[in-house]
C-alpha cells in the first residue's frame, strides 16, 4: 500500500480532467436537453487548433489563447447555432445521433488535415517533482489537479454566487418562468455552450501533453467523462465533479490492486451498479416523468 498516495494523486489529477469534461455534459443537458456524444472529440480538437497555430509560427501562449477562442467559436457558438438549434425541434434522439455523426466528422477531419499518427504537445506545467507529506509527487499531476479544481471552483462560484449564474440556473430549471421574470434565456443557453467549449479547451490543454495529440484520443476521454456524469448525476454539476474524481481514482486503484487487464471493465461495472441502485446518480436528483 506504499504507493497508495501516489495512486490517489495521479487518479485525482486524471479524475479532475474527467470532471471538467463531465461538467460539460451536465451543463448542456440542464440548459438544452442536449447529450453531446462528440464531447470527447471536443476535447481532442482544441489541441490540434493550438498545434496548427504553432505550425504557422505562433508562440505557445498565443496558440493557447487562439485555441481557446477558436474552440469557443467552433465548439460553442457554431455547434449551438448550426447543429443543436436546427436539430432540437426533432427531439433529443435525433440530436444525440447528430452529435455522434459530428464526432466521426471531427475525428476524420483531424486525421485528414493533420495525420493518423500522434504528435507531441507542450505542457503548461513544468516537469519535475516536489515532496508532499514525504511523498515525491510530479509537478504535472499537481498542476493538472490545481488548474482543474480552480476551473471547477470558478464555475460553481459563477453558478451559485453571481446574478448571471442564478439567471443561468433559472433558465435551466424552468425556461418559461425564467422568460416571464425577464431572464434572457437564449443568451443564458448560449453562455452555457461557450462555458462548455472553454472547459473542453482547458481539459485539452491539460491532458494532451500526457495523452499526446491524436485524432482518436477523444474516444477514451469522452467515454470516461460520460460514465462520470451518469455516476455522479447527469443533472447536477457537483455530481459530475464527484463522478469525474471518483472514476479517475477508481480506475487507478483498480488497475493497481485488482488487474490492469480488466481496468476498462471496472468503471463500467461501477456504472451498472450505480444505475441499478440509484438511477439518478450518486448526487443527482430524480426527475419526474409526465405520462
Amino acid at each position, binding site marked *: 500500500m*506504499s*504507493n497508495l498516495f*501516489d*495512486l490517489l494523486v*495521479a*487518479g485525482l489529477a*486524471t479524475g479532475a480532467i474527467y470532471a471538467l469534461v463531465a461538467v460539460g455534459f451536465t451543463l448542456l443537458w440542464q440548459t438544452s436537453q442536449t447529450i453531446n456524444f462528440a464531447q470527447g472529440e471536443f476535447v481532442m480538437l482544441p489541441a490540434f487548433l493550438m498545434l496548427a497555430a504553432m505550425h504557422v509560427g505562433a508562440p505557445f501562449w498565443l496558440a493557447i489563447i487562439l485555441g481557446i477562442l477558436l474552440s469557443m467559436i467552433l465548439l460553442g457558438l457554431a455547434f449551438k447555432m448550426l447543429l443543436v438549434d436546427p436539430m432540437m425541434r426533432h427531439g433529443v434522439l435525433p440530436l444525440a445521433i447528430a452529435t455522434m455523426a459530428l464526432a466521426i466528422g471531427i475525428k476524420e477531419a483531424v486525421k485528414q488535415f493533420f495525420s*493518423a*499518427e*500522434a*504528435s*507531441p504537445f507542450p505542457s503548461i506545467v513544468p*516537469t519535475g*517533482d516536489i515532496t508532499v507529506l514525504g511523498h*515525491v509527487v*510530479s509537478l*504535472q*499531476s499537481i498542476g493538472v489537479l490545481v488548474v482543474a479544481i480552480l476551473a471547477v471552483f470558478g464555475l460553481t462560484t459563477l453558478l451559485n454566487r453571481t446574478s448571471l449564474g442564478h439567471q443561468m440556473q433559472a433558465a435551466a430549471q424552468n425556461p418559461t418562468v425564467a422568460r416571464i421574470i425577464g431572464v434572457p434565456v437564449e443568451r443564458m443557453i448560449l453562455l452555457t455552450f461557450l462555458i462548455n467549449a472553454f472547459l473542453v479547451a482547458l481539459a485539452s490543454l491539460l491532458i494532451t*501533453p*500526457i*495523452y*499526446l495529440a*491524436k485524432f*482518436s*484520443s477523444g474516444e*477514451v*476521454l469522452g467515454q470516461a467523462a460520460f460514465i462520470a456524469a451518469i455516476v455522479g448525476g447527469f443533472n447536477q454539476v457537483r455530481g459530475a465533479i464527484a463522478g469525474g474524481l471518483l472514476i479517475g481514482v477508481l*480506475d*487507478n*486503484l*483498480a*488497475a*493497481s490492486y485488482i488487474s*490492469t*487487464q480488466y*481496468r*476498462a471493465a471496472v468503471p463500467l461495472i461501477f456504472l451498472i451498479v450505480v444505475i441499478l441502485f440509484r438511477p439518478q446518480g450518486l448526487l443527482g436528483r430524480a426527475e419526474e416523468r409526465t405520462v
Partner: protein
Amino acid sequence: MKSTLLVGALLTAITTTGAFAQAIKLADVAELSGGGATVGTNWKNGIDLAIEEINAKGGVLGRKLEVTHADSQSNPGVARAQVQKALDAEPYVLLGPGYSGSVKVTAPLAAEAGITQIMGGEAAELTQAGNKFLFRTSFGQQSSMPKVAKYIHDDMKAKTVAVVWVNNDFGRGGRDVVIKELERLGSKVVADLSTEAGQADFAADVGKIKAANPDAVFVYLNEEESARILKELKRQGVTAPLMGETTLIGQKVIELAGDAANGARGHVGLTTDAPVDLIKGFRDRFSKKYNYVPDHNGLKGYLAVYMVKATTEKMGKVDSKAFADTLHGLTIKAADEPGILMDVTFDQNGDIDRQSFLVEVVEGKQVVKQVLPKVK
C-alpha cells in the same frame, strides 16, 4: 500508310511483350495507408530503391525486376484480398506485408500457391507454423529476445526486472520469450504487467513498477504507448534503467516522448545509424532519393529485394518453385552481395541470424553503443 502503321504497332507489341516476358515480376502488398502508413511507405520506398539500383546494373541474370504495389490499408482483411489478387498474377516472389497480423492471415495463401513470401512481421509465431514459403527480413522475437535478456542480465546486472507489455500478438509473443530467457539466466521477474493497445493513462502501471522496485524495466509496447509510458515513468520519477526493442527507441517515440526518452536503451535488428559502411551508404542513397531518413522498415524493404537477387543468382535460374528451398539455410555475405548490407543466414524456418545493435537515446538521438554478434 495503313499497313506501315499496322506493322509498326505489331512490332511495338512484340517488343513490349518480349520485354515483359523478360522481366522478373514481384508483387508487394504493404500498409500504404491507415495506421501503418509509415511502415508501408518506408518498406515500399526501400523496395523501389533496390529495384532501381539492380536494374541500373543490368538486373538479375540479365533480366529486369518489376514490382506492383498494393495497399493493405493496414487491415488484415484487405491485406488478404490484395495478396490473393497479387498471387493470381503469379509473381516470382511476394513481398510484404509489414504487420504481423496481416502476415498471419496471408501466409497460408502464398504457401498454398507455392510462392515465397518475404515479409516484415516480427511476431515469433509467424515462422513457427511450419510454413516453408515464409521468410523474414528482420529478427523474430525468438531471435531478438534472447539478446535482450542477455543484455539485461549480463550488462545491466539486473537481478530483478519489471516486464511491461502490450496485450496483443506482438506484445504477448515478446513477453513470453523474454521472461523465459530472463528466468533461465537467473534474473527474477518481479512485475509482469499487461497493458492495452491504445492505452492513454499509464499512471497505475508505473505505480506498480515503482512498488516492485526493480533493477531494470523491460518495456515492450507499440510506439505511441511507449512514448506515453516513458513520459509517465519520468513523471513518477522511476530511475531504474529502461530496456526495450525497436519500438521503445525509434525516432517517432523520441519525438513524442521528448526528454523522457533520454537514457532508454533498446535492441534493434536494423537501424540506419548502425556503424556499418554499407548501411551508411544505403542511408545516403535513400535520403537523397526520398528526402528523409528511413526507419528500419526502409531497410527491410530494400533487403527483401536483395534477398531475391542473391537467391536467384545462387540458383542460376528464375524458378519460383525452387526459390524457398534455396533460401533455406543460405548464407549471403555482404562481401559477395553488398546490397544485403550485413552477412545474413536463413534457417529452416525462414528466420534470420545476423549482427544487431544495442542503442541508447542520448539527447534525443539514437546512439549505437554496442554491436551484438550473430547468435550462431
